[in-house]
């Protein structure tokens, strides 16, 4: 991770860890990015793991409010959820050869605000 960098999201991590980070964009969108350790990445590449990962969004009572399956190398996703006014978090699961799910990363808590009237941009001059 030294020398030339392209500043394009890659699944490789300088931390060499499995993690995901959730960021609230607006009242109904969470931005999630994730990275996996080199060991997990080689497991994907050697087909020991399904390259599709499962992403689940939970509310504060641990109910699933959204679920999706994406390629691990995507490394980021915008998740639209109904406007909620409570904390939620996201968990990522891997699928082994037999289709069993294993939790690999849990995000931070993210709070979205209630949906408000969209207003025009005031500081367009900036």
């Amino acid at each position, binding site marked *: *991770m*030294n020398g030339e*960098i392209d*500043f*394009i*999201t890659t699944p490789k*991590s*300088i*931390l060499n860890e499995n993690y995901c*980070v*959730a*960021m*609230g*964009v*607006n*009242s109904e*969108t969470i*931005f999630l*990015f994730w*990275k996996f350790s080199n060991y997990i990445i080689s497991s994907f590449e050697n087909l020991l793991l399904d390259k599709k990962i499962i992403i689940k969004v939970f509310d504060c009572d641990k109910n699933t409010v959204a679920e999706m399956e994406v390629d691990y190398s995507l*490394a*980021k996703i*915008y998740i639209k959820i109904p406007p909620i006014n409570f904390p939620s978090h996201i968990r990522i699961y891997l699928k082994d050869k037999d289709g069993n799910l294993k939790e690999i990363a849990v995000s*931070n808590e*993210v*709070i*979205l*605000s*209630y949906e*408000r009237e*969209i*207003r*025009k*941009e*005031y*500081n*367009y*001059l*900036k």
Partner: protein
Amino acid sequence: MKIYSIILLHAHLPYINHPEENYIEENWFFESVVESYVPFLMMIERLLNDGIEPRFSISISPTLCYMMENENLQNKLKRYIELRLKLIESEMSKEKNEKIIDNLKMYLDLYNYVYDFLETYSFDLITPFKFYKNQGILEIITTPATYPILPLFTNKKIIDSHIKIASLDYKERFLHPLKGIFLSECAYDKSVLESLKKNSIEYFFVDDTAIDKTKYDPYFLYKTPNDINIFVRDSISSESVIGESSYPANPIYRDFYKDIGYEREIDYLKEFTLFTQRIPTGIKYWKITDLSGIKEKEIYDFNLALNQVEVDASNFIEKIIERFKGYEKNSLVVSCFNMEIFGHRWFEGIYFLEKLFRKIRSERHPIQFLTPSEYISMNNFTIKTIEPEISSWSDNGYFDKWLNERNDFIYPYIYEITQKYLRIVNKYVNTNVSFPMDLALRQLAREILLMHSSDWSVMINYDTHKEYAISRLKKHYLNSIKIFEQISSGNIDLSFIKKLENENNIFNSLNWRVFSSVSSF
């Protein structure tokens, strides 16, 4: 009935300092100094000379404060003004049109006055700001350290560090404890509250979208559950100054975009701008004329524009009084603006502010301008507790501008480098580090803090100076990686660290231990 009014002018620029080269982006600072900051201070001087004591609250970001104090930038600023004066003289020697010559005389006066003003303070702008602060005319506050969008940071330690570093820096510079903070772009979520309290912040500002207006009147002061005062930004008064049908859009006012930097031969200009690219020079002869851009631009008339300022200032006051006609209680209007709008974007904006104060005095309007601390200290009202919503003062009131498909690629880099730093700090916090190691850990903090600035994501989002923004992020990232390598090998290259210190020299007495999440002993 009396209407209380707070005008908060928010001054911020990203930290841009290149001691060994000239960058176009450094001009943002010079343009703001010449057109906004100095004319603003000169306006205060004029009012005081006439016995009128204005009141402003000003948030100056730490990055801007460091630019104001930076000797390299002060020298470049001096050269910038000198070259502009030469450009004006050159234009005058060739110009035949009397109306354009009038414009040139106006610019000659402006640049000469600004030069003389700066020379009085040895080109250090913090000094006059401090002077008016100590007189009680200005209430100066700060922003989070390098102007990050705090709700986009998931680690509370980072939020806390930005507030703590800014607060300590403020105290060191202004010699008083910090009372208030302007959260970068008014970006708020409740994760900041604990840090604000820990750092003894007495008040902050939220956008009016942060409160449910069906339940709460936005024209009052509120407090958070942990007892911090909340000033609510009035979006209606802001719209008068910022927006397509606002005062600055009047066809009589000076056009911001049509600049001789885009009209004259590049070979002629480069002697004055020092760049071979086309850049604005600040010398503009045209009025807006027609917003649609169809009509040919007419020559700007400063005196006519000043007459319009008079009309607009009266209208602004009348509109506020009209809005609060039925109010029995004393209400509070909090108008927050980017300071660079006044003078730089809206050339006549400084005169507009001046007219407000003059008119309220001479026409005895029931409006009382005051600072946030003065309002809080009146203490003759009960302050309701509210829990503001996630909000910012931009776009749709959220964070889309700083986080979207055009700029999201920066966040994993920022996250990883920051996490790595937090771990290194925890490793060394309770050890007696060597002098070189201390310097390395301190410079590493500066490089990472500079990556946190929200300016880069905005520049990438709007595709304005995008390459510069990406190059800065890459540079700070690679500098950090190099320092990490030196720390883990134990071989600190002091000449490398010193070189970085010279360029990215913010937060002189930064204590890297503030990033630690393990207890010190």
